[in-house]
């Protein structure tokens, strides 16, 4: 035995760097590292990669686990950064195919208001002006602002960290301006019509906070990426994206182990020295990139005496964001006959997003949710003549902490039933007559598969005190430890989580060059 209390005979091998977790953040990091020629071991506790980006089978349906619309992919003539990353990995164009989502989203409200919003900068602008002609000027200015934000983001990205705040303020003032504003505060500069704001805000569930609390930077960045590069979906579901990344990682010399649950991060002289698995196996290393959420990494995997209190405060201060509640439905009928006219439909029981958000703090059915009907863009996602429909809403995971275990299934069924009723009342009155499979995922399910605290799907809340500039960065609690995933950098969502992995890997590589590791 030694300082870290592990059995020396259980040391399996040694790597310069180990990545814990083959979720999107971990895969982003692992792939970035092998592209730079690093020798990497990737450890995954499940027997499949992907984290939330996976799929599962029920009966004759294979359900997409999490992805609705992938951003930052683009087209052949306008490639997004994520697409270019996949290109460098040799995944696209030959090993993975994407389909483009034709429209941005459809929104239905319980009063019958039903609109479909197109993708594309011009189409989007024109549609908003057509729907709200009196707000024409505000809409145009709003879009100009969005474009200015995009220019600012591209400027910052191009500088690779070498820029001064003064420079940004001078050249791209919208970036610092919107960083401290809520989305509602930003709207006030452009619009008067509440309905217009409701329509633009429909994606608020992707962030997890209503406009009155969402950091404007986070929302505008997401919006402008969709408008500029469109939305895509990988053939084979998100699981084919993550599996392709693992394959590319292995082909570039990386090694992966499944069923490898890391129990402890080993420390020597205050620095990372290895990891110990639950089964007792030990891998030595100089650096760990953790895709496990920072709270779990810091409080459960590290020896507590090495963690500075200041770091603990940093990870505990931001509020933990909402978890998800999803109902995966297989229908024995075609979507064409059921009234699902778009890939992504936001269903609203009310216009007031604050009230809808308050509802996420109760163990009740939601007032706002999204219905993804994949067959539109991906006919073969389910057997001929059937439809795959996934209803997703948000819910604070904490609510489930104190329920009686024997009430779990009852509560799960009750909330799922309410979500199906919302579809019944707005889009498809006869939906229940065609259901072949209906399985729900609760915050507990999200916790169980990701170990994210409270099952949070986007990490900590992205309010004004926790926007992209102020959010936890990749530098971990002790030297040699790096955090990636939705809890860090630019927050939750597929492309931003993948990006966080690349950022974490970059930080490690920088430290290595500087001789810090």
């Amino acid at each position: 035995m030694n300082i870290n209390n592990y059995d020396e005979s259980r040391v399996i091998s040694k790597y310069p760097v180990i990545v814990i977790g083959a979720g999107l953040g971990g895969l982003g990091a692992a792939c970035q590292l092998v592209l730079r020629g690093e020798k990497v071991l990737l450890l995954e506790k499940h027997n499949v990669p992907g984290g939330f980006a996976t799929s599962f089978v029920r009966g004759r349906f294979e359900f997409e686990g999490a992805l609705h619309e992938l951003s930052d992919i683009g087209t052949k003539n306008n490639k997004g950064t994520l697409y270019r990353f996949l290109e460098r990995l040799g995944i696209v164009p030959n090993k993975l195919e994407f389909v483009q989502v034709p429209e941005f989203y459809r929104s239905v409200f319980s009063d019958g208001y039903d609109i479909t919003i197109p993708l594309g900068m011009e189409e989007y602008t024109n549609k908003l002006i057509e729907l709200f002609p009196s707000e024409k000027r505000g809409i145009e200015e709003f879009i100009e602002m969005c474009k200015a934000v995009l220019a600012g983001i591209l400027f910052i990205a191009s500088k690779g960290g070498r820029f001064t705040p003064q420079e940004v303020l001078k050249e791209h003032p919208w970036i610092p301006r919107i960083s401290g504003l809520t989305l509602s505060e930003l709207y006030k500069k452009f619009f008067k019509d509440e309905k217009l704001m409701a329509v633009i805000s429909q994606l608020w569930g992707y962030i997890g906070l209503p406009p009155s609390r969402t950091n404007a930077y986070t929302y505008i960045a997401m919006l402008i990426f969709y408008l500029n590069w469109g939305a895509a979906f990988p053939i084979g579901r998100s699981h084919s994206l993550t599996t392709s990344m693992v394959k590319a990682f292995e082909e570039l010399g990386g090694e992966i182990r499944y069923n490898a649950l890391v129990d402890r991060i080993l420390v020597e002289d205050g620095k990372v020295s290895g990891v110990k698995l639950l089964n007792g196996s030990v891998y030595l290393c100089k650096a760990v990139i953790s895709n496990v959420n920072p709270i779990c990494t810091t409080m459960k995997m590290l020896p507590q005496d090495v963690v500075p209190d200041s770091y603990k405060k940093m990870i505990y201060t931001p509020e933990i964001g909402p978890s998800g509640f999803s109902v995966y439905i297989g229908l024995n009928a075609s979507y064409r006959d059921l009234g699902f006219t778009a890939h992504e439909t936001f269903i609203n029981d009310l216009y007031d997003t604050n009230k809808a958000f308050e509802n996420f703090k109760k163990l009740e059915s939601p007032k706002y949710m999204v219905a993804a009907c994949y067959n539109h863009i991906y006919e073969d996602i389910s057997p001929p003549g059937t439809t795959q429909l996934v209803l997703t809403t948000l819910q604070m995971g904490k609510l489930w902490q104190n329920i009686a275990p024997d009430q779990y299934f009852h509560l799960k069924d009750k909330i799922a039933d309410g979500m199906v009723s919302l579809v019944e009342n707005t889009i498809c009155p006869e939906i229940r007559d065609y259901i072949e499979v209906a399985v729900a995922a609760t915050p507990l399910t999200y916790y169980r598969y990701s170990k994210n605290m409270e099952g949070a799907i986007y990490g900590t809340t992205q309010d004004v005190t926790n926007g992209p500039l102020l959010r936890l960065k990749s530098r971990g609690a002790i030297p040699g430890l790096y955090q990636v995933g939705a809890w860090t950098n630019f927050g939750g969502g597929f492309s931003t989580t993948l990006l966080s992995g690349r950022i974490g890997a970059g930080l490690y590589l920088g430290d290595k060059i500087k001789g810090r590791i």
Partner: protein
Amino acid sequence: MEKEIMEDVKKYQKAEKLKKKREEVAPLPWYYDGLENLSNRIHPEKQSLLVTDIEFLSHDTKLFRFVSAKLDKPLAPFRAGMYVGLTVDINGVRTSRPYSLVSSPNQLSYYELGVRKKEGGFVSPFLFENVKIGDIFEVTEPLGNLYYNPIFHGKDLVFIAGGCGITPFMSMLRDISEKRLPLNIWLIFGSLTERDILFRGELEDIQKRRSNIKIKYILSEPTPGWKGECGFISKEKILSEIASIENKYFFIVGNRAMYQFVDEELKALGVPKHRVYYEAFGVPDDITRVMGWPREIDVSKKVQITVEFRHHASKEKIVIEGSCIEPLLNSLERSKELKVEIASGCRSGECAYCRTKMVSGKIFVPPEVTIREVDKDFSYIHPCISYPITDIHLDLTLT
């Protein structure tokens, strides 16, 4: 304009200060649950069970009662109709089989499992003959998709059971009866002879006390003196019992031959596909009689299974013998040289616990088993239900 920009920027600086201040005053928690407790309670990785009671249900079927072997670990809750994967160690061979929970989900002080002794079987004769009170077993968390789903099953349910297939329905009927759920149930229960009707006393008691539960016994090999229904569970018998198929949801649990027969009968009655649920089929008694089996295969043929795995720091490679009419997992479990354990639960290809990388070879999988598309593309298989029809190369070094 300049002023407005500065005002906005000040807001950012204020947010930054607010964040710093919050960090300064934040208390340091000593423990953070984050849903870990509930997760361990509902989805324990493993459960350790102690046999407290054994009872004959019939001449060839026993009921085992288990309590949690660990005082601090209560049994996981379940939905009536679910099963657990029970691990057994028979002469050094570690394997598992799924068994439906028979007991009511409304109490978690014990689980009950019913086991019918299958002649020529490996696990069930062992359980039937050897298990005694005080023995300890490891089981999975409750699994499975056979349960009443209020979202779409409606109020009228038809349970069709064959033999030992009554076990999940017992749990469901106990639940419905105890909670007085407002459901209408028709149980059509096929057995061989009168002495094979399991739980008859309790079923008759439930039927007497609950007018919403109707039970029909059908015997395929009745002895003289049986006054009830005889023969197979045909469409005529089903219809005469339930009057109409309208708005009814059908659950079927039995053996593969019964599934195939009842499936045709329900189709003939016009029951739509999405209103019928079949319990996981399990491993067929005779794979060569399953639809799609490649007839040209010589069933006596032995195949070579090459397995690469890791044992501590070293990579090892072994070759074991397998049979094309037996699932790969069974051969792997019998090998004394394979030093890794492959998790398993359902033995039907639905739980994905045993997902394994196949480097080369050809397998046969029964047609009802659905596997992830990507797993097909990247050649991952479920060895619990995969039959090797050529030599096979498996890579377990990834785990």
